[in-house]
């Protein structure tokens, strides 16, 4: 028994001073946290730099610009309280084609105005004729003025049709020229984006959003929200509802999320709830695979350089295997306690607001230690088996890689766990020993109801799996360690397991 502790001590002491252990304990976690937090940080920092210029091509004639500016101002402001977005109408005044057409349009408009004036004058005159019965040749005058009026009306109608047709053409030129101008402004980064409002946008609900980065989901989401408000407002206004009421109805809405926890409600924050457990799983994974990896490389090293033969002449194989698992498991615990201490220091210094992060408590720290120990013992005994049957380091690394992939698999499902930590699928996956530690470490902080049953049941399952695995690995280890350069066949391994 004493030799078991001597082996454990040797494994512990030689590894704790190693650079890889120090790196994995004190650098990797911060590196990982930085890697996943960095994009978020950059994302949040970026928009605060300056006001964004948004172009607008308004073909509706409803003066959307002011409305849009007002709504944007109401919702989005920079840190210095100035507007985050500035809306400008895309001008096409310099385009010769448009200028020419506009002149012609004005000319037709003037013609329409003058004919309208003429028409109105005739109408006025006819009113006089009607009222004044003493006018000589009144019938003739009325008849001839009626003809004039009819001619004027016909002409007016013709000019109106012409104007309307010309307006459509002008609009289309305006749209084309404006879009050409807006594109060049977008291209030269003067504009961040521009919007095109078709004449019937309120009816169809379609607004074009032109940008260089249609993948900028946050920006798209903001405009969608604002335009939604504007269009619905327009539709309501069209139904004769007073503007003041609409203003009141459309006051912005903000959802504050609270999570019901055994100790009461807690404000819910996506980043805290998502990234926290993710970092937790990563740490657990790293602890298990740092210590497990050491078990693995230790067996492999002793087997490949034949130290194992000397060791087995002084200690028996169970003492050797037990010593390795004990020593390197303790190393893993040292790693975890270092992280707990670092977390406690961060909380004490106020860098981590523990009051807002409900899962930072001693109970969960205990679960972390428990699931680490279970995961380590489980994977550690598998590593002993693999290390002892592998003929070469290359073979062994392949299997090691496969195990890592399996163990990190729950991270891929982290969004599902976040959505419902107690979904039947997630619960079922928890009961696969390879996945148990990672899933449970994500579920415990995320579940709003206590999952005591699952905790106890998975612990029992893990303990049983570990007993089976250690029993198997003990047998395989004893038999295979003395085989050199030869990989045992599956049948041989099976016969070792069965042997009395």
């Amino acid at each position: 028994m004493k030799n078991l502790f001597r082996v454990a001590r040797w494994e512990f002491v030689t590894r704790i001073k190693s650079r890889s252990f120090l790196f994995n304990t004190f650098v990797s976690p911060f590196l990982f946290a930085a890697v996943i937090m960095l994009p978020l940080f950059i994302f949040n920092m970026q928009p605060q730099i300056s006001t964004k210029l948004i172009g607008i091509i308004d073909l509706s004639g409803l003066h959307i610009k002011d409305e849009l500016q007002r709504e944007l101002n109401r919702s989005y402001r920079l840190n210095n309280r100035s507007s985050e977005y500035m809306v400008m109408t895309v001008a096409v005044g310099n385009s010769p084609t448009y200028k020419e057409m506009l002149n012609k349009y004005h000319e037709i408009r003037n013609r329409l105005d003058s004919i309208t004036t003429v028409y109105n004058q005739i109408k006025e005159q006819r009113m006089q004729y009607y009222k004044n019965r003493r006018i000589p040749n009144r019938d003739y005058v009325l008849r001839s003025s009626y003809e004039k009026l009819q001619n004027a009306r016909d002409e007016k109608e013709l000019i109106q049709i012409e104007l309307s047709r010309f307006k459509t053409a002008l609009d289309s030129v305006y749209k084309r020229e404006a879009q050409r101008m807006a594109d060049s402004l977008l291209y030269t980064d003067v504009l961040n984006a521009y919007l095109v409002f078709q004449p019937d946008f309120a009816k169809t609900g379609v607004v074009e959003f032109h940008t260089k980065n249609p993948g900028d989901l946050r920006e798209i989401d903001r405009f969608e929200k604002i335009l939604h408000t504007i269009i619905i407002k327009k539709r309501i206004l069209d139904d004769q509802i007073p503007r003041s009421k609409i203003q009141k109805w459309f006051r912005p809405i903000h959802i504050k999320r609270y999570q019901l926890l055994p100790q009461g409600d807690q404000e819910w924050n996506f980043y805290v709830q998502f990234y926290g457990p993710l970092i937790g799983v990563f740490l657990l994974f790293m602890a298990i695979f740092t210590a497990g990896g050491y078990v693995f490389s230790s067996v492999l090293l002793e087997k490949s350089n034949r130290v194992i033969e000397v060791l087995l002449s002084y200690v028996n194989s169970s003492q050797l295997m037990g010593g390795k698992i004990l020593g390197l498991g303790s190393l893993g615990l040292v790693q975890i306690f270092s992280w707990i201490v670092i977390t406690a220091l961060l909380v004490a210094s106020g860098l981590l607001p523990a009051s807002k992060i409900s899962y930072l408590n001693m109970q969960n720290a205990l679960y972390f230690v428990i699931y680490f120990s279970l995961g380590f013992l489980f994977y550690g005994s598998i590593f002993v088996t693999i290390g002892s049957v592998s003929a070469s380091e290359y073979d062994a690394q392949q299997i090691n890689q496969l195990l890592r992939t399996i163990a990190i698999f729950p991270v891929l499902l982290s969004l599902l766990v976040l959505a419902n930590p107690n979904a039947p699928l997630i619960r079922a996956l928890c009961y696969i020993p390879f996945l148990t530690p990672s899933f449970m470490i994500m579920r415990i902080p995320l579940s709003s109801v206590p999952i005591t049953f699952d905790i106890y049941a998975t612990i029992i399952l893990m303990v049983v799996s570990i007993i089976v695995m250690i029993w198997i690995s003990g047998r395989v280890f004893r038999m295979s360690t003395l085989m050199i350069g030869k990989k045992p066949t599956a049948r041989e391994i099976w016969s070792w397991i069965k042997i009395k």
Partner: protein
Amino acid sequence: MNKETNENILEVRNVIKSFKETLVLNGLSFKVQGGETFGLLGPNGAGKTTTMRMIMNILRPDSGEIYFNGTPRNKLEGVHFGYLPEERGLYPRARVIDVLVYFGTLNNMTSRKAEVEAIRYLDRLGIIEYTDARINELSKGIQQKIQFIAAFLHDPEVLILDEPFTGLDPINQTVLLEILEEYKKKNKILIISTHMMDQAEKICDHICLINQAQVVIDGPVDAIRKQFREDAYYIELEGNYPILSELDNVQILEEGKNSYKFVLKRGAISLADLLKKVEEKARIRRFEVFEPSLHDIFIRLIQEQAEEKA
């Protein structure tokens, strides 16, 4: 265990061991006394390493027993035994002193005692300056010396060395032999397996030759040599005279450039007469009664066994 008594006896009794269908040892028995250097000899694959691993309790016999001072081997702690396996390795990144102390403590030494003994032996083997060096910084020869130290640091009752001299230069071979001689004087058991017959001949008091899972011969080296003595003589002359081949009453066994190995035909001529006859024609440089070397005995026995099988 009282180190001062003469009671050290290692006994291997009728041990059978097979791996899958291959019979590696079939009824192996031998006995080694304290103060004796025992040579375990045999061709490759004869079962030497398996025998040593069973004495070290790394492997268990399928049947038969191994006793040390009357106690079955599997009831004893490893601390009475020291082992240098044929294929050697150490922890490449560990420091010399740390490795030695680790092996010492695995054999119930205190860290302090292990450190003191380790330094003593490092000094004795002339490698004290490497005490704090990492193993992978050292040459193969030095690594081998460190493995020797690891094998006998805890002063075991039985020391088993598998091919101990391969890779050592003559000076270090001499230093090692001195240490082993000292060890033997303490009435301890030394078991050596080697292919180098001349080394075995020099240091072994007792040998056991195994081949094809069985003991071919077992006994004190002198007795074995006596047993295989052929009443042959060896003569070396100055100049080349085919004198011996001219004599009818001499049977030449081997002929060298100026030397002959021969036997006298029964009752033909006395040795004194023969030498007189030779001296008349040539000067005798060397004459001796021919003792067969272990090498010769080894080859002869193995060949005989092969012929019998055929």
